[in-house]
């Protein structure tokens, strides 16, 4: 092993192509099922692919990863349950579209833009890889702290809808607090575990998220069965018509799509960040730049385009530092890196120049997977639309089963199932109080990044807080953050003044 020649030609073998198709399909299914994430699927598969040839193994891992990130959008749109953390932003506008009877069309739109996002990222990967990888390394502890704060606060300020802004911020901060539970990685001191050894490892994101979104959704459906009644399709649209419509969106929202592609690729390229945040930042940016921000949260195509373009662009982005420096961009790519190493490929600074054929192979795989994903996604749309016709009395119990199974399989602990149930109840109460769940999920994802980056930055900066404000990149991030937070307030004041002037 290791001496096996892997290059673009490997992709032309029918067996490899078959693996690619199967991997993509598997990824979509796993991604679409709430509780089963791309991370989990890839880490299980890594052992199973060990016996395959290097080319086939790597193709399967990449296909499942890309398919999984895309697949999450399906359940987000159709059930309001994001299948993977990275599609949480998609649910905000995707589900209202389903309620309006446009679920099928929305499905085709996200499929097209997921694939376009991936391809956009691939183009950037092809032309600017060394440049971006270098730039991403300029982000130190201090910038990571601001980036994490940005992620939480942006999602807080855009998900609250009509409710006051502070509710989202409350949810975000509760999430960050939850992320601090467990043995702290800096001093090894247990925090907020209240004597339960099970809590030492902290609250796992996946059970918390499936509780917050999946279980809470099921509770909602029990409480108010009418809330999930999908409106009859207004007009029956044929598949080619929907595909045509999805490409027309590209002409209609070019700015949102290109912005999301750029944001997604770059955030994907930042080591340790990945698609989850990319979709939020892109969604927030799109909303701010939109001509119709009032449509966001009520079924805006621009919104789902932004988040889905970005999270799949990020899947291409993570390969930038992976291939040039051997640094994984997110949890899944760390596993894929492990898979490459097991087959004797050791990406690193010299690898990129010494093995151009392997790099072409990865690029070719990304290209093919995105295309296959698009084809499969479009075909699946009609099938999934049929499933949706099943009564909620059947779908929701299935969601509950998946929630339980999904949270258990993460680490085979009953504790995680309990966590999931608690978060489910929590989610129900939050819905009642009109507190959005998404900032809380993002708080749990990014809380530890904020906490650890802050403390590492303090230690490395010799305990001076000044370094958080002194670095040029930090200042840029602070500027963006302040702008994002203050803009809604300024707008509100302006609107109020205007209303007052008109009354006079």
């Amino acid at each position, binding site marked *: 092993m290791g001496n096996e020649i892997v290059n673009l030609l490997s992709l032309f073998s029918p067996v490899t192509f078959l693996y690619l198709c199967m991997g993509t399909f598997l990824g979509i299914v796993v991604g679409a099922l709430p509780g089963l994430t791309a991370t989990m699927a890839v880490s299980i598969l*890594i052992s199973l692919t060990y016996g395959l040839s290097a080319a086939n193994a790597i193709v399967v891992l990449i296909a499942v990863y890309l398919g999984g990130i895309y697949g999450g959008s399906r359940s987000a749109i159709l059930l309001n349950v994001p299948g993977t953390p990275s599609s949480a932003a998609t649910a905000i506008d995707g589900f209202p579209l389903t309620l309006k009877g446009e679920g099928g069309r929305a499905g085709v739109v996200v499929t097209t833009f997921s694939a376009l996002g991936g391809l956009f990222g691939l183009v950037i990967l092809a032309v600017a890889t060394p440049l971006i990888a270098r730039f991403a*390394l300029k982000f130190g502890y201090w910038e990571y702290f601001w980036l994490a704060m940005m992620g939480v606060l942006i999602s807080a300020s855009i998900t609250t809808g009509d409710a006051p802004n502070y509710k989202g911020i409350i949810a975000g901060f509760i999430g960050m607090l939850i992320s601090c539970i467990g043995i702290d990685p800096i001093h090894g001191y247990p925090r907020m575990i209240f004597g339960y050894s099970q809590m030492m*490892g902290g609250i796992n994101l996946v059970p918390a998220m499936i509780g917050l979104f999946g279980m809470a959704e099921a509770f909602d459906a029990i409480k108010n069965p009418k809330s999930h009644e999908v409106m009859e399709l207004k007009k029956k649209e044929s598949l080619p018509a929907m595909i045509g419509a999805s490409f027309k969106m590209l002409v209609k929202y070019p700015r949102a799509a290109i912005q999301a592609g750029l944001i997604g690729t770059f955030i994907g390229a930042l080591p340790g960040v990945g698609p989850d945040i990319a979709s939020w930042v892109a969604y927030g940016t799109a909303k701010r730049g939109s001509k119709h921000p009032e449509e966001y949260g009520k079924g805006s195509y621009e919104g789902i385009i932004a988040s889905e373009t970005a999270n799949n662009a990020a899947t291409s982005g993570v390969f930038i530092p992976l291939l040039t420096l*051997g640094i994984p961009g997110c949890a899944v790519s760390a596993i894929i890196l492990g898979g490459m190493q*097991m087959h*004797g490929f050791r990406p690193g600074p010299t690898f990129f120049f010494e093995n151009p054929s392997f790099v072409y192979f990865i690029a070719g795989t990304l290209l093919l997977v995105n295309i296959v994903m698009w084809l499969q996604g479009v075909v699946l749309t009609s099938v999934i639309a049929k499933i949706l016709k099943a009564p909620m009395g059947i779908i929701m119990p299935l969601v509950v089963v998946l929630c339980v199974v999904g949270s258990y399989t993460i680490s*085979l602990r009953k504790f995680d199932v309990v966590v999931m149930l608690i978060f489910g109840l929590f989610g129900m109460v939050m819905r009642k109080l009109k507190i959005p769940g998404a900032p809380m999920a993002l708080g749990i994802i990014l809380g530890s990044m904020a906490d650890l980056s802050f403390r590492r930055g303090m230690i*490395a900066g010799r305990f001076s807080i000044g370094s958080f404000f002194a670095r040029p990149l930090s200042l840029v991030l602070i500027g963006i953050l302040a702008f994002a937070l203050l803009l809604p307030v300024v707008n509100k004041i302006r609107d109020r003044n205007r209303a007052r002037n008109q009354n006079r």
Partner: protein
Amino acid sequence: MKKRVLLALIILACVTLGVFAQGAAEAKAFPVRPLVMIVPFNPGGATDLLARKAQPKMEEILGKPIAVQNMAGGATAIGNQYVMDQAHDGHTLLAQPTDITSIAIMGQSKLTSDDWAFLGIAAAVPSVFVVHPDSKIKTIQDLVAVMKTTKLTAAVAASGCAWTRAIGLFADQLKLTLPQFVPSGGGYTAAVSAMKKEVDFAACGFAEAIELIKGGELRALAYWGVEPVTLPNGTVVPTFGSVYPALKTFEPFGGWVGMAVPKGVPADVLAKLINAYDVAIHQPDFIEFCKQSSFMFMGKIGADADAFAKLSTSVNAYLMYDLGFTPTDPATLGIQRVK
């Protein structure tokens, strides 16, 4: 209707037979069902890679599938506790890294190496000290000179981790100022921290930084292996012992990765598992993998590995206690000091 009854009867018969067959098999031999291999770290690290590399051959020898499951958290305490809580029948294995020598003394777990029967210890991951290529510190002697007077910052994986101990031992033996440690979450991320100039230097596993060193992104000052290594560009990475002979006795120093089951697993089952691990890690492609990845193949098996783990626990626990990383006296945990 009759057909349905018949079908039901057939299914019933099959199920009953199945149950009996299961019972009969249980009496026969280990393993009776698929095994689970718990990796107490995230996928992609040294522990994970070495476990997964051994798994296929072990599967073949034992004749049952082995599912690898990652269960990270609490510096391996979570995975350790999980495997300890399962039936002690040999069906749940734990990929056991060096951290078992430190989690008890760091208060993260009550378990020590005495609670485990090692199938073996496959490989060691010697520690390396790295700096950014632009750093004023060019050699290990430079580092010593600077550390005599200045408190530097040093990225490591976690509080009290193997790489922290490597710096601790170094500073202690050569009478240097301990640096300010910045736990980065992994050896790999520690290396990247040095690369981003977030810290003055970093300590990590040699294997974790080798590609970055070869690529000129990092400069290796010295490493805790036994023989100096010549890089493809001709630069030689010295061992600590080759520069400071006083440090020679500690080499190799760093982390190691083995495989263990809880004590109390029946002797015949343990023997089978040890044999499977023994064969698996002595496969030529396993040894080649270690070499390619800059892991130091150790190949310690069974009781040999137990003794090594015990020694390692004693050395590490007292080192950390003496350096003030922990207030817990190892003696209170039944760990004896080795001279």
